[in-house]
């Protein structure tokens, strides 16, 4: 299954300079500062017609509810088969992969189909989940947090995983040894600060996080916070190049520690 679209744009920006001709006389009314803003035809219409505006608001709500729909928990499966099966079903449905203890990795095929034979592993705990590129959000994480034997969790490139999600991972503190957050567009250093609960962590991947302001410094601080953990991430010198004066005193501090 292909990674879900991360974009929140409702329409492709077609016919960029178009509205300028239509606007005609009203051009002076529009603020000059908005010239740089990308304006689409739909945006222009939404500014002037309530119907279009309401339609666009409706579409926006629809998009949000779609993510919610994907992240609802499978209460029936959970009641019938227990938390492991429910979590595995949830992850496979999203297009991720699951590994039961002592079993092979299970993944859906190219069309997103998967066999339901894992329903017999009711008593077998799930030890690894690879949810790379899935549309998991705060609510969807509920399913995974029930896995008390989870050792490895990969949330690479998940568009809806944010700092709020990271603040809930403390529930897995007892077992989690490997965590990968590489490429999550919404994870920042504020969320990484909550990972201090995960003292059993041996390997943490925080590379390629666009929302982190100082990747190098953040990595150093995370390493300091989790002394037993091997933190993969940006090269620590990366942040230094951005602002040499600013960074130098902070790195100087971490050396004696």
């Amino acid at each position, binding site marked *: 299954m292909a990674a879900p679209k991360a974009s929140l744009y409702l329409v492709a920006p077609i016919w960029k300079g178009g509205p300028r001709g239509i606007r005609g006389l009203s051009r002076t009314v529009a603020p000059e500062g908005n010239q740089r803003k990308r304006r689409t035809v739909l945006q222009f219409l939404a500014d002037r017609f309530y119907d279009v505006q309401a339609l666009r608001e409706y579409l926006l709500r629809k998009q949000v509810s779609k993510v919610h729909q994907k992240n609802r928990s499978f209460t029936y499966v959970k009641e019938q088969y227990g938390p492991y099966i429910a979590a595995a079903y949830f992850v496979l449905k999203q297009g991720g992969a699951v590994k039961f203890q002592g079993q092979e990795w299970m993944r859906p095929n190219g069309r997103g189909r998967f066999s339901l034979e894992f329903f017999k592993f009711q008593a077998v705990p799930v030890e690894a989940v690879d949810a790379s590129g899935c549309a998991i959000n705060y609510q969807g994480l509920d399913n995974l947090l029930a896995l008390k034997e989870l050792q490895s969790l990969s949330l690479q490139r998940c568009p809806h995983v944010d700092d709020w999600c990271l*603040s809930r991972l403390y529930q897995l503190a007892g077992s989690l040894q490997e965590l990968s957050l590489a490429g999550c567009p919404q994870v920042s250093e504020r969320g990484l600060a909550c990972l201090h609960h995960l003292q059993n962590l041996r390997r943490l991947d925080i590379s390629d996080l666009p929302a982190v302001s100082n990747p190098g410094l953040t990595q150093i601080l995370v390493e300091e916070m989790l002394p037993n953990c091997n933190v993969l991430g940006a090269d620590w010198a990366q942040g230094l190049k951005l602002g040499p004066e600013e960074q130098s005193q902070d790195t100087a501090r971490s050396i004696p520690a």
Partner: protein
Amino acid sequence: MLRRALRLGLGRGLLGRGLGTWRGDSTLDWDGKVSDIKKKIQSVLPGGAWNPLYDTSHLPPEHSDVVIVGGGVLGLSVAYWLKRLEKRRGAIQVLVVERDYTYSQASTGLSVGGIRQQFSLPENIQLSLFSVDFLRNINEYLAVVDDPPLDLQFNPSGYLLLASEKGAAIMENNVKVQRQEGAKVCLMSPEQLRNKFPWINTEGVALASYGLEDEGWFDPWCLLQGLRRKVQSMGVLFCHGEVTRFISSSNRMETASGEEVTLKRIHEVHVKMDRSLEYQPVECAIVINAAGAWSGQIAELAGIGKGPPGTLQGTKLPVEPRKRYVYLWHCPQGPGLETPFVIDSSGAYFRREGLGNNYLGSCSPTELSPQEEEPDPGNLEVDHGFFQDKVWPHLAQRVPAFETLKVRSAWAGYYDYNTFDQNGVVGPHPLVVNMYFATGFSGHGLQQAPAVGRAVAEMVLEGSFQTIDLNPFLFSRFYLGEKVQEHNII
């Protein structure tokens, strides 16, 4: 055809005139005139700036269903929920009157921006839980088509409350209540505390409670701007002015026991424009008092508290401005990334700010010595001696690394301090029947604003609290003398 002929004629006319003596001159002039005329036409067209009569676009409307006094985060939240819960789109017209458009003195922007569930009252915990849900889904609640998503900068680092021997039993009880309400809080012994946060000196600490989820701090300015943007897109009107007068009518009534009461109803609000003597009477059905630290004055304007003492008429709104300082300091050896929002048993508090070993914190004056040392709330000047004498000793005692620190900056802000019981006032006034309060939160108004806004909107639209029962926070408790005591006020 006609156009071509016209153009031809015009061209010829130009040409003809051009053949005269002042050729160059006239063409230049003509060009200037054309653009002049164009501008004139543009401004005269509907929606243009030119108006032959007196321009009143800066004045608020003459009628508005609801007038919200105070455009801070509470006022905007009430406006948001009123518009969201209205039965039909555009059914209610809402006007927000804000005196200080730069929000230079507003408590919203000057606050530390913390949110926690570690209160002792179930109502406060519920309010916080609702608000944290709002903040988590802020981009769904406050989504505006075509505007970029809000970046709330929420730091989910949790709150760490420390209790001395004396406060340990109360803390245990509080945590029990918090867990019942659904907050994720754990208790820690000094031993556990030392293991988890080695930089804390646990001397004098008997018990600590630590919020695991949904607690931390965020950017209040972002919430304010997000609410403003959304509320504006929903059709709420803003006005830059000050409420100077309420015009109300009163009628006498008799209660079942034979007592006479005077019920008042506000009909008009006079909004004085900023830096001008001009004012506009706004006819309204409901007034919402969300003026924060100054809501006591607004209540007085409406005649609340003007009566013989001891009666309901003579009961004032006990909300007054109190000045609180916040200091920002740098400490190279200070605690690291895992630092939560720490609240010491002495009342001093601090939190991490950014990554560069900067910390932010202070102490509430009343926590140390009651009443007499309250700073003058007339201005927002910072007393640096207060940090030296009152805050630093406690901080350095709790976190030894803070013995060497350097204060980088400081500011002061107002608390809308409820002198009666330090809790919010929500809901209608019993005598001035169409004035609703959303004020008096004594420093936790920001974190509870989304929920309080909803509660007030429900009260206005439905006549009762629907989501969270806030009946203990009604105004009548001041008259009845029923304090709702909150133990965790910082």
